[in-house]
């Protein structure tokens, strides 16, 4: 049988044991013996690890000595080693696309229990590959330049770190943040575990560096609207929400806020988790970057009634002389071009009102841990004083671990940071109020540098530790000591008794979960999510910041619960990946594009309307459609739709697929 381009296929088949991964389940010698009987197979070999240097050498030598011109490797998924074997084929002296990979690990040995059936299935898959490879043709890869600029979505500690690393390397970075200031969750914390250094002392210098960096374009109060293009060449539309304050003119002097018609703040401050109040015109926190006021149209009288005396605007104009307030500001859509993207959108906290027996939202003195972070923060609403809603100082405080985490009814995962931040809060509460502090935990999980030592320290600070999942936080009482208090009911599983602990304040150590709109972002950037909703890395161990979409990287807690050191480490890793891509300057694209046979094209336009990438244009003088190779992504829509069957897709041609099916069906 001669192939379409005239040469007689001389096929080499190489079956990999992958240690015992394949060899333990599939009878490899039997598959090899079978492969030798297939048409045009000149040589079939087995090897323990085909991906190793000696394994690859087998291919190269056979190409040279036996004049092999088609290569089939039966091993793992193409995701892992397609590139390896294409390279070996090329180094042997053949076009790399005269290679095909048969997956007998993920598709066979790992998922088939009966060794006999596994062997039969492996044979079928090998036969399919041998049939298919006869129809392979030499192809040339496309090379496209990589745009050197980088987009980072999310201005928390991960996004900030990645932005600074790249900007310092001379790259132009667009940093997009949804809120009016960068800083993310870390900006809300008072101290960080286990060193207890001040969060803002270590974060705010980085935030101001971002603002002043000549290579960083900071866009706050902005969101990604649309993403187009592919690795090296993304076109991104960004929506800048109106803040009704002109950024370049505002100097963050607070005069407008002082002159707002609301004499005192009345609206819950989002930054302070609702513990503190703000006015309709506000700066979320003193170290905000950019330090620019923002007007919330939901609460501003001018937006609600149009009849506000607009004292803020007058004050800015007359007292400060800046005229920065503009009630007519509209949202802006900007388009940017970048070569790579880092997504660092972080997490949201678990909403504890979903667990009604913990009384959040019903008992005023039940707090989330994030609310308490604001309470203990010197720049928070109480100036760092830990007080109850009525202003009293608590004499006893319970901290409930694992709220919403490690719980089949809510989130099954461990949120990783709660044990440590609970210890930190226990320390701070005890230090500042002298209150009795009860930590109710399921298991203490403190892996991390200096973490176990911190736990040990707390054990000697007079903080109580009770191992048990809290059943409820309640206000029903059985004795006078409990009157007016919140009562924690918990089984102390170390001594085997049910305890009732009356306390003044309850802190719920809420877990971390994916942001509720992570799914929208996932779709925008064509990346994947785990079942839980965290963005999915390309490989959990070896490619932890890459995604299955080339050129899109993830960093920080959007990939899974993470503390600050881990988020920072991932941000650095993502920045490194981006540098590696951008500095390469050129990327090779898979040549799996669609091709139109002009002789068969009737010029019906069907494909043009269907192409999602606008890659097809009509050429009137010849009455045919033509595909722009640089724009085609190889999605195959036009191939299926063409009524004249004039379009084919390289690597997925009809004869290739039909031969593959035929091969599969040959083994009985």
């Amino acid at each position, binding site marked *: 049988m001669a192939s379409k381009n005239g040469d007689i296929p001389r096929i080499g088949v190489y079956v990999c044991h992958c240690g015992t991964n394949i060899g333990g389940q599939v009878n490899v010698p039997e598959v090899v013996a079978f492969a030798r009987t297939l048409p045009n197979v000149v040589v079939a070999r087995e090897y323990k690890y085909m991906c190793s240097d000696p394994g690859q050498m087998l291919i190269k030598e056979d190409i040279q000595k036996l004049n092999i011109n088609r290569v089939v490797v039966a091993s793992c998924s193409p995701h892992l080693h397609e590139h390896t074997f294409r390279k070996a084929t090329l180094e042997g002296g053949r076009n790399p696309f005269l290679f095909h990979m048969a997956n007998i690990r993920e598709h066979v040995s790992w998922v088939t229990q009966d060794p006999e059936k596994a062997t039969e299935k492996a044979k079928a898959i090998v036969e399919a590959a041998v049939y298919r490879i006869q129809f392979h043709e030499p192809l040339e890869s496309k090379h496209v330049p990589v745009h050197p600029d980088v987009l980072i979505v999310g201005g928390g500690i991960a996004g900030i770190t990645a932005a600074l690393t790249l900007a310092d390397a001379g790259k132009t970075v667009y940093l997009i943040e949804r809120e009016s200031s960068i800083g993310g969750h870390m900006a809300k914390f008072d101290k960080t575990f286990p060193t207890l250094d001040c969060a803002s002392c270590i974060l705010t210098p980085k935030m101001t560096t971002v603002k002043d960096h000549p290579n960083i374009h900071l866009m706050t109060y902005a969101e990604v609207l649309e993403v187009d293009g592919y690795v090296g060449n993304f076109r991104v539309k960004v929506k800048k929400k109106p803040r009704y304050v002109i950024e370049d003119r505002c100097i963050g002097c607070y005069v407008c806020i002082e002159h707002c018609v609301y004499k005192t703040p009345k609206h819950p401050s989002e930054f302070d988790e609702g513990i503190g109040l703000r006015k309709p015109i506000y700066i979320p926190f003193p170290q905000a970057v950019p330090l620019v006021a923002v007007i919330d149209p939901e609460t501003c009288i001018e937006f609600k009634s149009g009849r506000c005396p607009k004292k803020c605007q007058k004050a800015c104009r007359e007292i400060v002389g800046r005229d920065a307030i503009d009630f007519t500001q509209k949202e802006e859509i900007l388009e940017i071009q970048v070569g790579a993207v880092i997504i660092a959108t972080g997490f949201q906290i678990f909403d504890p009102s979903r667990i009604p027996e913990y009384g959040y939202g019903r008992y005023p003195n039940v707090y989330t841990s994030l609310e308490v972070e604001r309470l203990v923060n010197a720049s928070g609403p109480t100036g760092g004083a830990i007080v109850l809603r009525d202003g009293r100082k608590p004499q006893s405080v319970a901290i409930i671990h694992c709220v919403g985490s490690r719980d089949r009814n809510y989130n099954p995962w461990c949120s990783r940071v709660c044990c440590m931040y609970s210890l930190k809060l226990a320390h701070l509460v005890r230090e500042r109020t002298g209150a009795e502090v009860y930590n109710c935990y399921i298991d203490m999980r403190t892996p991390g540098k200096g973490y176990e030592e911190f736990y040990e320290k707390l054990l000697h600070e007079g903080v109580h530790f009770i191992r048990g999942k809290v059943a*409820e936080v309640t*206000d029903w009482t059985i004795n006078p000591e409990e009157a007016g208090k919140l009562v924690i009911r918990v089984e102390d599983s170390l001594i085997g008794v049910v305890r009732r602990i009356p306390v003044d304040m309850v802190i719920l150590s809420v877990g971390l979960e994916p942001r509720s709109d992570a799914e929208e972002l996932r779709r925008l950037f064509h990346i994947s999510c785990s079942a839980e909703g965290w963005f999915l890395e390309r490989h959990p161990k070896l490619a932890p910041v890459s995604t299955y979409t080339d050129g899109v990287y993830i960093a920080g807690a959007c990939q899974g619960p993470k503390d600050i050191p881990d988020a920072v480490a991932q941000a650095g890793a993502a920045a490194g990946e981006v540098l590696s891509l951008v500095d390469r300057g050129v990327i090779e694209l898979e040549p799996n594009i669609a091709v139109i046979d002009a002789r068969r094209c009737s010029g019906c336009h069907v494909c043009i309307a269907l192409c999602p990438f606008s890659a097809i244009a009509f050429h009137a003088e010849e009455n045919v459609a033509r595909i722009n190779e640089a724009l085609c992504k190889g999605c195959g829509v036009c191939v299926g739709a063409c009524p004249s069957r004039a379009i084919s897709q390289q690597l997925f041609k009809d004869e290739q697929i039909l031969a593959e099916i035929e091969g599969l069906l040959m083994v009985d």
Partner: protein
Amino acid sequence: MAYFYYPGCSLKGTGASYEKSLLAVFAALDIPMQELPDWNCCGATSYMSIDEKVALAMAARNLAIAEENGRDIIAPCSACYMVLRKTQKYIKEYAHIRESILTALKQAGLTYRGDSVRIRHPLDVLITDVGVDEIRKRVRRPLNGVRVFPYYGCLIVRPKNGFDHATYPTSMDVLLEALGCEVIDHPLKTKCCGGSLTGTLEEVGMRLVYILLKEAKKRGSHAIATVCPLCQFNLDAYQEKVQKMYSESFAIPVMYVTQLLGYALGAQHTHLGLEQHIIPVQEVFEMVR
């Protein structure tokens, strides 16, 4: 939709006012309901702990009869509700139990195919099938100003029943609000009433009754609303005893939610069993503003 009504032993005995008021409410809402023909005891919680196999077979007989006629069962008593659901679940999930039950049913000329019969609680039917808006529309005597302490008991919410939350149910709250009641929010909705401990371990049982009565009183309740004959009995019948044991006076009417519902929907007093309580309930209606 027509339902079978499964009274169980309680509603024909101590819970007679529950039966009366339930029938009155369903009549007022024009919901056709017929007593399950030839029903037998559900076995309650006690038989289950003596001989599970026989107890399950006995409960399954009721399911088989209902299935034969293709109707859902309304089980107002919490114990019946729990036992029938448990039986259905066991038959579905455990092959050896299914086999022995089917053998037993065969002796009685019956069979049971699966779970086409749904076991429903009256609260579920009222909230899900009738709907709160419909009930609100039909209220003729609103109970404005009556402060009610909704008390669900432990059995109808656990294991999870699919129509309400296991630790903080709200279906009765919503219904009572629709009648105009002032519903008291409290954390004891599913706390134990003492169950049969009031008769066997009196000290423990009374303590549990005391906690509920004390908290209901503390929160200014005009009445406690229940959906379980045993809860109603424990809370109603032992108030005097608790009073003596804990030196605190109690006189809180303990009513079935169906009595309040029936009154609001305009059913005749005499059809609601209002006279069959130990702590008189008439004064509850005097609180209406």
